């Protein structure tokens, strides 16, 4: 043991200048300063780790998603413009059928439709909570809405499966699965998100605006419509975009009610597919590195890119809103 240490002990003589100096400096430092360095270091490391995870995520998903175009030689046009999704077979020219257009249309379709459904309800409830019945709104409606945020998405999917799908089947015929069922489920799911954020946006309008308007003789509705909503518009837009982000990325609830047929939807009540539903169904079945798997990762990359685009839009709205409201 001693012999093993022996050669190591003299060695540090020339080189150790740096660590020894550092140690000496640390000794001279007040213990408080060390506590401070340690605290900053630990908390900074946590923040750094979280950032590193995000960067790794974007990098890895992009690496696998881009392999479709670099390694497998599939053209962007046939991916984004192709209308047939069947990566196991090829067309007459021998190119694999990897058209993602049906899923892209499906994803945008359910997102936009659910936003249209949810918009009047969310804004109406938000106005009610802030302007009409603040006590009832804050004590009853808002907590109940926040409770709804916590209900898991699979439970919404299950409700869709056992209530909405049979209901649509009864009215429109067919299977009942499709874009309409998906959008209704999503609308109920994003309702709490959009409502809570709209409440915040409307409550942030300065009280003096309302008093000014009422003082000029405007009715409550005129005040709400012409003053409060105008001023809260950027915040309400942000709420809607964040709701759309959630709807666009929701996987399981949609997958359970959409019918999972990767074709261009011809009606609202025929089975369709979204980016997330195809990913959910397919990823487990295909081995890593195969062309099919690479294309699935490309779908994931599209999903990632869209959520980045939504954030960008929120930022742009925020900047514009700051300009409008001074």
């Amino acid at each position: 043991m001693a012999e093993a240490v022996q050669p190591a002990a003299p060695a540090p003589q020339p080189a150790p200048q740096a660590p020894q100096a550092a140690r000496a400096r640390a000794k001279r430092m007040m213990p408080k300063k060390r506590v401070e360095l340690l605290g900053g270091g630990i908390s900074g490391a946590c923040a750094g780790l979280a950032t590193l995870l995000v960067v790794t995520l974007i990098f890895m998903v992009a690496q696998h998603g881009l392999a479709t175009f670099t390694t497998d030689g599939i053209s962007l046009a046939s991916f984004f413009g192709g209308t047939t999704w069947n990566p196991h077979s090829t067309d007459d020219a021998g190119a694999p059928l990897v058209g993602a257009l049906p899923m892209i249309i499906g994803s945008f379709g359910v997102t936009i439709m659910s936003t249209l459904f949810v918009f009047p309800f969310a804004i109406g409830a938000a106005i009610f909570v802030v302007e009409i019945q603040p006590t009832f709104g804050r004590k009853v409606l808002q907590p109940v809405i926040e409770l709804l945020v916590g209900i898991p998405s699979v439970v919404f999917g299950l409700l869709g499966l056992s209530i909405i799908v049979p209901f649509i089947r009864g009215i429109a015929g067919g299977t009942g699965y499709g874009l309409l069922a998906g959008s209704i489920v999503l609308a109920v799911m994003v309702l709490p998100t959009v409502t809570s954020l709209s409440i915040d946006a409307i409550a942030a309008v300065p009280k003096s605006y309302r008093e000014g308007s009422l003082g000029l003789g405007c009715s409550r509705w005129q005040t709400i419509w012409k003053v409060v909503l105008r001023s809260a518009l950027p915040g309400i837009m942000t709420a809607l975009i964040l709701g759309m982000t959630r709807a666009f990325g929701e996987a399981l609830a949609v997958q359970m009610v959409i019918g999972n047929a990767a074709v261009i939807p011809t009606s609202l009540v025929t089975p369709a597919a979204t980016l997330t539903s195809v990913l959910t169904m397919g990823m487990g079945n295909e081995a890593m590195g195969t062309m099919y798997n690479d294309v699935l990762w490309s779908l994931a990359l599209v999903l990632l890119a869209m959520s980045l685009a939504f954030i960008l839009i929120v930022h742009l709205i925020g900047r514009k809103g700051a300009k409008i409201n001074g």
Partner: protein
Amino acid sequence: MANTATPQPAPRLIDPDAVVAHVEKARRQSKAATVILTAIAGAICVLLAAILVYIISAGASKAFDPAFLTSPPQQFKEGGGIGPELFNSFYLLVLTLVISIPLSLGAAIFLVEYAPDNWVTRAVKTAIEVLSSLPSIVVGLFGFLLFVLQMSWGFSIISGALALTMFNIPILLRVIQQALEAVPTDQRDAGLALGMTRWETTVHILLPCAMPAIITGVILSAGRVFGEAAALIYTAGQSAPALDFTSFDLTNPACPWNIWRPAETLAVHIWKINSEGVVPDLTAVSDGTAAVLVICILAFNLIARFAGRRLSKKLTAE
């Protein structure tokens, strides 16, 4: 009297009748709007109540049946339970919180107390914003790539817990950040003026002050984690091996505490049995599981409100 009989020669700029009509119209509009908005709010209340009542009543017969809560699931037979799933859900939740609370606490302290105003801080804030808006299926697929394949941990509790951590960090971080920011600056200044370091001020003054809000936020985020499924189907897996609660051998796949075994949770169970559709009593089992899930989440919400209020009373001695 005579005036009303003879027409006024001077032209009137404002017709009083029109003004009255206008005001009447505005008043009617305002009343109609109030009625419509109240109806919308009422409709939402009714919808929410209906959803909760439906979920709980549809699954009540199963959810309060001890045999259902403790027995293992069945593939092709009726009468399967959710015993392992229930345990897995709670075990995953605890592991996730153990990993994500310190991480988000550290990151939040850094962002609120230490972060200099430069591009590095802005990059960190942007990264966390990106993480918060990522679809959970993308987080799950990343976990599949990194933890399941790259680290070759397979479908396991640890992979699932780490994926859920990524899902949970932005939620927790925001809560803790808001709680710290809500502490008055006076408290910070007082601590620093007494010669405490920033770290000591944070640990001894700010954190106790922010604790009620942090606890509430942690419990609410626990509800979100508890019901998450999309991030788990490709990380913690979709199978629940039978558990042997007498085993403490951490390498045994039947040992409940083994973090390397696959673990299906309640939410994943609902999704899986519905997408496979081979369980004969599918509706009963999934309704029962959904009821258990929602009851647990309601309990989390109640506990969060209660604990936050109780703690803040104790700390502020009000």
